């Protein structure tokens, strides 16, 4: 039987995976506090999410592990998508990317109240061809 907190977190990723950042209101507290890649507040969290979805509109995600301790959920996940619009100044390359991410969420009263997000930016930039490679000629 899954805990209520884990269900909230799963719903969070359903919304991200369906490409609708505006619906994050459903599962996030209005005064959410964010850290690192999540931005500082709910507004920035939606912006960060929307930004990723613009560059990779077919984004899918795969939840590998959800680990809970009290109201904290730690999530290990991978994203996959196609680079279809500018990302970090790099024009659309049409390349597929797959990268890991780690999120830590605090869930209270059925809402995410605090979130920290890190993703493997280096892998994204490498896979969209923005980094010099050491491939054999």
């Amino acid at each position: 039987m899954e805990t209520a907190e884990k269900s909230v977190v799963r719903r969070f990723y359903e919304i991200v995976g369906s490409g609708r950042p505006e619906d994050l209101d459903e599962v996030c507290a209005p005064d959410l506090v964010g850290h690192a890649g999540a931005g500082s507040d709910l507004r920035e969290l939606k912006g960060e999410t929307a930004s990723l979805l613009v560059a990779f509109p077919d984004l899918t995600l795969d939840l590998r592990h959800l680990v809970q301790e009290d109201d904290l959920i730690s999530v290990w996940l991978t994203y996959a998508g196609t680079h279809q619009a500018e990302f970090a100044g790099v024009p659309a390359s049409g390349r597929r990317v797959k990268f890991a991410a780690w999120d830590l969420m605090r869930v209270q009263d059925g809402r995410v109240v605090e979130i920290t997000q890190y993703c493997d930016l280096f892998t994204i930039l490498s896979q969209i061809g923005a980094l010099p490679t050491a491939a054999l000629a």
Partner: protein
Amino acid sequence: MNARDQLVAGSRSLSSGEWVAARDAFQVAWAEEESADALDGLARALWWLNDPAGALELRARAFARLRHEGRDAEAAAVAIWLAREYRNLYRRREMADGWRSRARSLLSSLEDAGSLHGWLHLAESEADSLHPRAADQADRAVTIAREHGDIDLEIVALMRRGACMVGGGAVADGVADLHEAMAAATSGEGDDVQYVGEALCTLLEVAGLLGDPSMVEPWAAFLVGYHASYAFGPLLPFETSSATELISAFCTGCCGGVYLVTGRLDAAEEQLSHAVTQLITTGLRPRCLHPVADLVELRVLQGRLQDAEAVLTGFEDDPECAASAAALDLATGHPQRAVARLTRAIESLTGVPLLALPLHAALVDAALASGNVALAETSGQFVAEVAGTTATVLHRAQRDHAAGKLALAAGDAAATALLRSATLAFAEAGAALPACRARLALARSLAPHDRGLAVTEARSVLLALDRMGATAEADQAAAFLRELGVRGRTGPRHVGLLSNREREVLALVADGLSNAEIGQRLFISTKTAGHHVSSILAKLGVRSRTEAVAFAMLNPPTAVNEGTR
């Protein structure tokens, strides 16, 4: 070699795709001894050497000679070929009708016409628009082709029947015909490679109508292999190696249209300008699109409205140019004229819902701009009905886009979800330009209650449109951002543009600090930290903190800038 040997050599070269050798052989044969076969062979070689005007002229002369030699069946075949080329390459209806009538009278006096009646039915079908009634003619052609084992005819007639059925809304049956014909065309069952080319062209046309490029993919991959063992002459440049290049070489006009939708406006510009010049100077036009219509659309996108008007001159009343002309009307502030123009064009397309769909989609905008909500709703309804029958991603996107714009105009909260769906579906269909339009409408719908997200989405649109060179629509996005109180455009982007303080903030953002933590670290308020972050995003032309960090990684400050830190 004597004339007879030259004719044999020419025919062999024709069937192995060596067009120059064929032309030379037939020319020598003609010089040795004037004959219908030499003329006809020369004409066919010229067609492949991209001189269709010369080919048509010579084949007409070959027709007369065949008649004098009493070879009426061959003459009828040539007449039908001429009718089809005049119609399909030049849209010269009178010439096409004349040659068809000529063929019909000849056939009526022939005892054994073989499959020629089928070819005539095909030509009759092609003289009509993509209408279900034209499918009946094509169907007769298919039956006759099968009775006589004429694979070339079966391929083109099946393609035609499929295209007409799709045009009339019977998508599944039509697409089945197309794939059957492509299987025959690509297997090498047929005799004349011209019909493989025609088949691919029809496939591209229908894929374009349905907005489903994946229809072409399996065959395109096959054709690359086919091309390796068989020269396609002028339709394909020699170096062509990838499927995409293959398609674009095959039908440059088509791809001018494709580039427009996918947002590659520079490529579209080159192809369309060339196609329009060709249309005006020689009358030759691509089968599946009107280059004038697409070039007008491109000029409107670029904000070059006077150029658009100039290109449109002489084509104002062509129904195929109606949607582009209406876009020009809207851009120049004449919504009523756009409504009238679209309504007229739609009336001429009764019975062909698939062709009417893009016009109805345009009419939603024109009607809303002229304040006629009821008309906009009717058109939105039409788009939804067609989308229901075709079930393609592009049409679903168009349905939600229309419904979303109507909801937005009515202040209905459902607008956001509809426009989000439209944005995602356009992106899925690879239609980058309409995706930008839907996303800008989405940003407008978000603005009253989710300003931050509206800014992010609008910035994305501005970046994408600027990159495409769609100046006029990029200006709209920039104006909307200014309404939201945000600076829209930036000039050249690099980290050197940031102030020392902003670079400090960016370094802390890269360390994963939130605005509050940045404020504590730098002894400034959280709000001030937030302002610095917004300014960094605007100066770097990125949408998010993650992208700002990535941008800084990719574009490190130069040594000179480094020294100022």
